[in-house]
């Protein structure tokens, strides 16, 4: 008997729960094709950043204006801009090319923090053919006068603004740093989101000891990070009808299975694919299938959420008690002094 691996995410029927997260691998049609061949069910394109769009526009404008019309011999210093785009055109071209050459659903991605003209690109992406949009909200509050409630209002406003401009489903990628994740999930859902990706990994900057500078430095995810998503997916699964994607630390088949058990509809993967290449996907699928067979599951949908907080024999395990237990077991690994 063959196992049914299909799942539904954002209303899209996917052949399996493996979605490639926004990462450089999704930036080229060739590698998208290889990912699909290896078994990917959908892919999220790399994010188009609010910062990238607006910052570049401002920078280019500044350079064009600098010393312009100041001296009679050199009224300008650059040829007039032609076909110039701050990355958006390539992005739309990528969507169009991807839609032509791969069959799996393609999810566009916008990354930003404030309502602005840049959200209009969601519509352009939809027009270029994406099957769904992912909105990656990345906001670091630094103002002590800005309450958490205000910050959350900003999230909601942004989700609503993007939702309003598109007809395709919208999923929102959130970070974990909320006082009440369930409340935020509820508000985001009310603002019009069709799904959630839990969680966004905020890339923390590093310090360069020689240059004494703050330096961005990409660190790939590690497996233990999945725990965070497992907990919150298990908790919100019972509270919302939104599609849920687990992200951050999904590396191997076990991770996928755990996420599904907790209640995810799909998982998003990047690190493992960057590390082991697209063929890693086929290996995962084999292993998932084997596990399902061994454990006598007929389909992915059968197992999805079967260990959510509500379906778990011990709901409190997802709550504070869990912490105590983990700590105890962790310390017990060491021989007592």
């Amino acid at each position: 008997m063959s196992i049914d691996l299909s799942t539904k995410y954002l209303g899209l029927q996917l052949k399996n729960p493996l979605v490639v997260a926004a990462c450089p691998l999704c930036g080229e049609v060739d590698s998208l094709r290889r990912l699909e061949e290896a078994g990917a069910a959908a892919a999220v394109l790399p994010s188009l950043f609010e910062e990238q769009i607006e910052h570049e526009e401002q920078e280019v404008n500044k350079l064009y204006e600098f010393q312009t019309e100041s001296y009679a011999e050199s009224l300008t210093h650059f040829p007039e801009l032609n076909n110039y785009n701050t990355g958006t055109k390539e992005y739309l071209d990528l969507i169009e090319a991807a839609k032509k050459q791969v069959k799996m659903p393609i999810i566009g991605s916008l990354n930003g923090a404030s309502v602005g003209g840049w959200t209009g690109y969601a519509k352009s992406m939809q027009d270029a053919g994406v099957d769904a949009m992912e909105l990656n909200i990345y906001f670091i509050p630094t103002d002590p006068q800005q309450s958490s409630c205000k910050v959350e209002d900003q999230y909601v406003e942004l989700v609503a603004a993007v939702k309003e401009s598109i007809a395709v489903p919208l999923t929102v990628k959130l970070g974990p740093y909320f006082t009440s994740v369930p409340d935020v999930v509820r508000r985001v859902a009310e603002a019009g989101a069709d799904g959630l990706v839990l969680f966004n990994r905020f890339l923390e900057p590093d310090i360069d000891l020689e240059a004494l500078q703050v330096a961005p430095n990409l660190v790939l995810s590690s497996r233990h990070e999945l725990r965070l998503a497992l907990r919150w997916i298990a908790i919100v699964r019972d509270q919302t009808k939104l599609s849920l994607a687990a992200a951050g630390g999904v590396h191997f088949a076990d991770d996928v299975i755990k996420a599904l058990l907790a209640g995810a509809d799909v998982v998003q993967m990047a690190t493992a694919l960057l590390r082991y290449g697209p063929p890693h996907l086929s290996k995962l699928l084999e292993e998932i299938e084997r596990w399902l067979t061994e454990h006598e599951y007929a389909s992915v949908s059968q197992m999805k959420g079967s260990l959510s907080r509500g379906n778990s024999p011990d709901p409190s395990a997802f709550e504070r008690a869990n912490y105590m237990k983990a700590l105890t077991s962790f310390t017990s690994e060491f021989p007592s002094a």
Partner: protein
Amino acid sequence: MSQRSFVTIDGNEAASLVAHQASEVIAIYPITPASPMGELADAWSAVGRKNMFGVVPDVVQMQSEAGAAAAVHGSLQVGALTTTFTASQGLLLMIPNMFKIAGELLPTVFHISARAIATHALSIFGDHSDVMAARSCGWAMLASNSVQEIHDLAMISHAATLQSRVPFLHFFDGFRSSHEVNKIEVLNPDDVRAMIDQQYIEEFRQRAMNPDRPVLRGTAQNPDVFFQAREACNPFYDATPQIVQQYMDRFAQLVGRQYHLFDYVGAADAERVVVMMGSGVGATEEALEALLKQGEKVGLLKVRLYRPFAVEAFIRALPPTVRSIGVLDRTKEPGAAGEPLYQDVVTALVEGWSAVHAGTLPRVIGGRYGLSSKEFTPAMAAAVYAELSQQAPKRHFTVGIHDDVTHLSLKVDTEFSTEADDVIRAVFYGLGSDGTVGASKNSVKIVGENTPMYAQGYFVYDSKKAGSMTVSHLRFSPRPINSSYLVNRASFVACHQFVFMETVDVLEMADPGATFLLNSPFGADEVWDHLPRDAQEQIIAKRLKFYVVDAVKVAQQAGMGGRINTVMQTCFFALAGILPRDEAIEQIKHAIEKTYGKRGESVLRKNFAAVDGALGELQEVKVPDAATSTLKRHTITAEGESEFVQKVTTVMYAGKGDLLPVSAMPVDGTFPTNTAKIEKRSIALEIPIWDPSICIDCAMCAFVCPHAAIRIKPYAPEVLTTAPATFKSKESRGKEFEGYRLTVQVAPDDCTGCGVCVEVCPAKSKEAVKHRAINMAPKMEHLEAERKNYDFFLSIPDFDRTKVRIETVKGTQMLRPLFEYSGACAGCGETPYVKLMTQLFGDRQIIGNATGCSSIYGGNLPTTPYAIDANGRGPTWNNSLFEDAAEFGLGFRLALDQTRLYVENMLRAQASQLGDDLVTALIQSPQQNEAEIAAQRQRVATLVSKLQALGTPEALQLAGLASNLVVRSVWILGGDGWAYDIGFGGLDHVLTTQRDVNILVLDTGVYSNTGGQASKATPRGAVAKFAASGKPSRKKDLGMIAVAYGNVYVAQVALGANPAQAVKAFREAESYPGVSLILAYAQCVAHGVNMTTGVAHQKEAVQCGFWPLYRYDPRDAHEGGTPFKLDSRKPSSPFKDFAMQEARFAMLTRSNPKRAEQLFELAQRDIDDQWHYYEQMAGVKRDIVDEMDEVEA
């Protein structure tokens, strides 16, 4: 036939539109003010705009105008319709080929933004001296007087040349017409096709060189036939005027505007007639109309076809009643019987008058006007008409200046004005960086293109590149505007920068009852007290309607920073009432969209926010009845300076140079140096402030300062007893400064605020990393104290040159810069090299400077940054041309060496009286270091006093030349446009001469001065004008071409990457007794880099191998030595990482990512290959023969 549209464009675009339509090949080379024609043609072809034949014209950049003309010549010979654009010296360089093109009857049109030719000085501004110098080439010459005429006559030229086979110079006045923005009707492609006869194109192509029907052209002819052959072309010249008239008539039928070879306007029975051509016609016609209204019998003859000069048509165009003719020439031909147009008119009258008209010949007088865009106003034209009615007028005169030497100038009634009341005349004072000119151009377009009104804009810039003032002159009228002169009675005056109220008489031009709009940080109720008294008085006396707006506040709220242009523009429209407010705002936004749309939505949004916020801040000021202010406008007094500086330089600096009489001017173009210091422009908002507590005395801040506005001096501690309380000092480090104090001091009024010094400061505070030993701080908080400190600093004696470790970076900065406070761009990459050069050698230096940025910031009046030391010594400087600096500088050396030989001969001849020891020491002194040079100066002083004591004629003659015994340092300066392109032939020749000259190439990789056109130094993949889709070819390796000679010292340096290597290279180059070439990496505005971090960015250029550092010293090229030293490390980062930090490269990844990827890949391979090559070079052993030694042996 499709509808013709009205557009608002400048004269260059009006010409280029037609040229691009009617040409297949366009060969170009940048020169002000013609560059925009080539840039536009190149940009249009780059986006695939097609010509009348349905193909995209091939636009090719050449190495010089001479090259462009030759390429045109070749292209014409093989049958492509070909054109070019140029001006001034560029046209002169085309002359040899122009003779050929005409001699071979090749149809073409050259469009000329006519500009002054450099004589006693260079001028970028307009007059007819260039086209007049080309008039013997045998070209037809057609003059356009306005933007509309430029468009129309460009068309007529392209049509007429094909039938006549005579090539055409189509010219118009540089800047006044080429850069004036005006509303014109443009021809559509059908018009172009209707004007050009296919038949003649086919005949032209049939004549083309073709191996299927081979011919021989360009023969050498002998006395037997040359003369007859030269006469064979006569019928073509005879036929040309009629052909031109036919096309003018066809044009009239088609479009409705009728032109004639000579167009007469005025009274049918005029007795006095002015004959002229060019933009001045506009002003004269206005004067004429005013005089006609007064019943005067006057007329104006506009010359359109100047060559071939159609005598009969000319005579017939004149009214038979004319008794007195004034011919105005916008050129000067010293020594001639008269200027060219005058002479032609005289000849034509003598030859043709009696055949057409009865009676005696009219009297003819000739005058010069408008040289170098000198204003020519209706009042001046009226003065000419007045002179014509004199019993004994000046036969030769000038108008527009005050000639108190030869008394040729006419008196002008300054009250005479022809400005009509229904014309809105507005002037806008802005700062180069605030966008005033851009917004003003948009205002002209808004009115021109959205209302039935006509609109005109003309823009005046000042002589500095950074922090310069711009004045926009706008007119809006119900009739077409031909007022070819500046607004001088404005109904609207806007001052976009409050600081100008303190320095400029902005209300001078305000008409009584005019509106005055001021961008002011002070509101309507407080601004009055902040105005200088003289402004208050004018506001009251002229009953001005006075408004203020805090545009900076609005712009900042909108996220526009200092770009206050749209705020001010919105207020202008609100107050001027040309359009209803709402419509005006809508149109402003529409214009913003057109101008900035390509730069993205966020840019538009911010501009719109500025527009929307503007009117809320606009306030009317209730003008008090009396002036109460005690504030005075700042003027510079130049106390303690020479009489010339006080009476002339300061007047020029104050913007009143027009008032200076002829007698105030040097007769031969000689000006004093050491004058930039009087300006005190005070343009920085923030200045660097020193923190001695963490300073490590590295001197990098002073080393990189582009404006010599940070200085370092060690001095004895007792100096401090009289120091101002705020004067900072620290203990000086280093053996040679033991016991000394040291101060790093900013020149607060001379700093441009670029921040380069802070960026390179390596000393960081342990408590807060961002705090360095030098930090930018708001100028106003420190100005008063730092002014005093700087004055005190300057009063401290310079450190003894002979005691400085001059070979170190720090040591060089203890020497006084003899190049200071230049008007270069803030953060300029070139000027730190120039400054370093003067610190090291300035007191004995002779500089020949190629035209370009370095000649502009070096020698654009009113002042020069070249300075003198405490002994009065300093660089002596000259700019010959763009193309000849190497040869010019070599000439310096030839004369110096010859003089030295002569002096040595005289010394030897008088040795018995002077003492053999002294003579021997004087002749043999090696003078290889500062101490030896100082000793030689001492010996020369001894010699001179001995000679004066001797008092014989021979002794006194020698005394006059004795200073030549001190070693002289000859430097040839220029940019890459000069060294790699136009001047390369000469440079290459000089490289082979083995004479002691030093060549410094300030390599920005573009023609910086003319606005960033590609040169052969432009790196592969960089976007530049003329290379809008990224330069496809590799940067020329000029250094290795020079190294190939073997006996040339060559160094490639980047002072931001390796300052010590740069210092070493400068010293080695100077000490090498042959030719030395230094290629210096200089960042530029045209790179699209942050100019504040530009110097630091040089490190990355070197790190990725884009700019390897090396020195080739022929002194090591003997007996198997390895003269080539690679001073930088193997490239350790990819080119792309470096490139993506510069907009010139990064832009391409956005506009054409595929091409960018290809070009970047090739650029990386260039770097890899070059590094591999250099590495091998570093191991190459040489044994170069010193030819002169061999010969002597």
